[in-house]
């Protein structure tokens, strides 16, 4: 039978006896075998920390040793021994006891090669899962932010901001490709150097940790994003893979922004061209118009104004609004505006013009739900026949009296079969009377009843007139008070009185749909 000392020496676990300064006093065979030394003399007097890898040494000093002092024992700590052939992962348990006033530490170690490999796989898998989850969450955040903007400026702003807030960059710069000439730079400190030729091809990490990602779709270079790492010692290095994935989102957003801006510019040019010929020139009347696009998302709306002659001395006025925004709304607007010209005819009452437009909408699908005010002004007598299809009423500002809205002759928007028939009404204008047709973007609704909003508009107009403004200046003053986010379209018509060279003016018949009220002729003889 072997002695207890022999059994200690031959035990199938690595055993160490250390002194108070954690130096080796004794070691058993298993320990010597593990670190591949022939006998105890080879390690006697050496500190345990020196037999561990550096990581293990720091861990021992900062975690294990304090625990030993406080608890008198530590269990299952994973460290690595240094051996001639590399590292030997072990699980270490240690206890501390006092023998005759002397502090002794006893250590047992089990090889953890297999367990270590398994744990590393577990840790690796867990970290990969955490990284993947973090990356997906982060890319979702960037995608959501990018989805909230449309134009190039917005996309650039979101990219520079999310580079810092989500990707963890200390600084970021973006270069975007232009139709001609060099890349255009946005943001970033000067220390962030422009990309090199090589960096235009593949994502790369510079020596200082800066990550550079070319932004490409379908092979075309749209820009380059550069992310500088944060300087703080504890900051994580930037992740090339995440940056590259974010770069793909960025490239798509840039492509979309470019397409969007082209579409915006086509639409606004188209709209401008379509509205350019809409003012009748006649000494009996002063006509001015103003169209101001909304700043909401850079897209043009479907508002229009138009004036044209239906007879030598009858001028037709139309102001309307097609549902929607952008290129499609602009083209629909153009078609409908032309359809109004085609539908009107000498002697055809306004309500029948609307009937023709309804059929146009039915057949083509264009302009469904569009709203419209259509009026014909007899330049010789000042008689105004008007009708509103789902549109806000015109504002009449008499030369000598209080302004009021023309609330008669109302029916549904185009293409909508309501219970009310298409109707028209007639009012007689006096020389100097001003008529204002407008779209709903001119009226500041906020969350209040329409009546109050219209009262305010009337007051704005009255005040501007009293301040001596007229024509274009008057409309500019009114538009300046309109909400900025929506399109605003205004047409002002002032009848100056009959032309002296006129022949007999055609009679004005009250229309069938007139809701009564004094006849224009009776009240204001021409």
């Amino acid at each position, binding site marked *: 039978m072997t002695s207890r000392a022999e059994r200690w020496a031959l035990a199938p676990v690595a055993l160490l006896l250390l002194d108070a300064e954690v130096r080796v006093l004794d070691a058993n065979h298993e320990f010597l075998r593990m670190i591949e030394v022939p006998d105890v003399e080879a390690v006697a007097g050496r500190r345990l920390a020196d037999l561990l890898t550096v990581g293990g040494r720091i861990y021992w000093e900062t975690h294990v040793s*304090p625990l030993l002092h406080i608890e008198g024992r530590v269990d299952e700590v994973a460290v690595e021994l240094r051996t001639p052939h590399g590292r030997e992962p072990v699980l270490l348990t240690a206890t501390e006891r006092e023998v005759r006033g002397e502090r002794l530490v006893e250590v047992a170690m089990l090889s953890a090669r297999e367990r270590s490999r398994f744990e590393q796989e577990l840790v690796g898998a867990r970290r990969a899962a955490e990284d993947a989850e973090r990356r997906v969450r982060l890319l979702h955040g960037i995608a959501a932010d990018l989805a909230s903007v449309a134009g190039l400026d917005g996309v650039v702003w979101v990219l520079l901001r999310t580079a810092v807030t989500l990707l963890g960059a200390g600084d970021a710069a973006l270069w975007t490709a232009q139709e001609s000439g060099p890349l255009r730079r946005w943001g970033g400190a000067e220390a962030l150097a422009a990309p090199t030729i090589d960096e235009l091809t593949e994502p790369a990490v510079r020596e200082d940790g800066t990550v550079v990602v070319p932004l490409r779709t379908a092979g075309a270079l749209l820009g380059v994003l550069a992310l500088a790492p944060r300087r703080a*010692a504890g900051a994580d290095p930037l992740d090339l893979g995440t940056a590259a994935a974010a770069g793909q989102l960025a490239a798509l957003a840039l492509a979309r922004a470019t397409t969007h801006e082209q579409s915006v510019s086509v639409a606004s040019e188209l709209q401008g061209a379509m509205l350019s010929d809409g003012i009748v020139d006649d000494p009996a009347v002063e006509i001015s118009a103003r169209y101001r696009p909304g700043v909401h998302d850079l897209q043009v709306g479907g508002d229009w104004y138009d004036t044209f002659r239906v007879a030598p001395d009858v001028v037709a006025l139309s102001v309307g609004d097609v549902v929607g925004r952008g290129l499609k709304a602009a083209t629909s607007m153009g078609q409908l505006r032309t359809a109004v010209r085609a539908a009107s005819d000498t002697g055809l009452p306004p309500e029948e013009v609307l009937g023709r437009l309804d059929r146009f909408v039915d057949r083509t699908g264009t302009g469904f739900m569009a709203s419209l005010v259509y009026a014909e002004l007899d330049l010789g007598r000042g008689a105004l026949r008007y009708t509103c299809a789902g549109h806000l009423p015109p504002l009449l500002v008499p030369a000598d009296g209080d302004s009021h809205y023309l609330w008669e002759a109302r029916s549904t928007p185009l293409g909508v079969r309501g219970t009310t028939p298409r109707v028209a009404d007639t009012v007689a204008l006096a020389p100097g009377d001003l008529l204002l047709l407008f779209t709903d973007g001119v009226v500041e609704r906020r969350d209040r009843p329409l009546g109050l909003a219209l009262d305010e508009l009337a007051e704005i107009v009255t005040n501007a007139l009293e301040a001596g403004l007229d024509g274009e200046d008057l409309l500019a003053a009114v538009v300046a008070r309109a909400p900025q986010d929506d399109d605003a379209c205004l047409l002002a018509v002032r009848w100056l009185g009959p032309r002296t060279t006129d022949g007999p003016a055609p009679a004005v018949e009250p229309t069938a749909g007139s809701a009564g009220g004094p006849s224009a002729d009776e009240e204001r003889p021409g």
Partner: protein
Amino acid sequence: MEVRERNNVRTMGPEDGPTMVFAHGFGGDQSMWRYVAPVFATDHRVVLFDHSGCGASHPTAYDPDRHADLSGYVADVVEIVEAVADDPVTLVGHSVSAMIALLAAAERPDLFDRLVLVGPSPRYIDDDGYHGGFTAAEIDELLETMDANYLGWTQAMAPVIVGNPDRPALGDELAEVFRRNDPAVARKFARVTFLGDNRADLVRVRTPCLVVQSRVDVIAPLEVGHFVHEHLPDSDLVVIDSVGHCPNLSHPALLVAAMRDWLGGDRW
């Protein structure tokens, strides 16, 4: 949140005594001072706390941005001192908290009248003509070792609090404390601790300092202690006959004696 709750601030000793604040180092919590703080509590108002992300600090105390470098920990300490004392205090910092103490005193000299620095190191990684004790690759290895203990982390650190007689039994709350002390936070704290470089800050500190250096310390070697002493405008260096980075646990009597000697000395 109230600072005392955020950083689990505890006080002991006479209310009217001079205030002495203890800041623990990397890898532990306030119980690292269990053999030292009670000795000073006989004639000082002793203040202990847990750094954000350590011990029983509040789960929301740690902020990855605020604590991405030492400045967040410095701000924590400044707020704690402002909350607990009206007059300048003696701040005792161990390991990384020695650097935190120096940075705090450089920022706010009005809050501190003396600093005790136990095992300070302004930079752990070797540099041109500077011996910090480690290469960059070795620090990476430490981070790997910490990862290797990822699974066993909770079990390894829990007894530090369980066995602390200064604090009431935490019972079931204990497991919760450790669940929220995310190993990822400890890993970040390791990066902040071991990758920083604060050598240039030493000269900014006007507060009188005592540098306490273990005779043998693989984390903060003797020559680093000398470097700190030589670059601080007003400091004394005491080398105590201890081995290891935590003389506060392994050789508390030597540390206490060195502190008593210096604090009670007639250098003023």
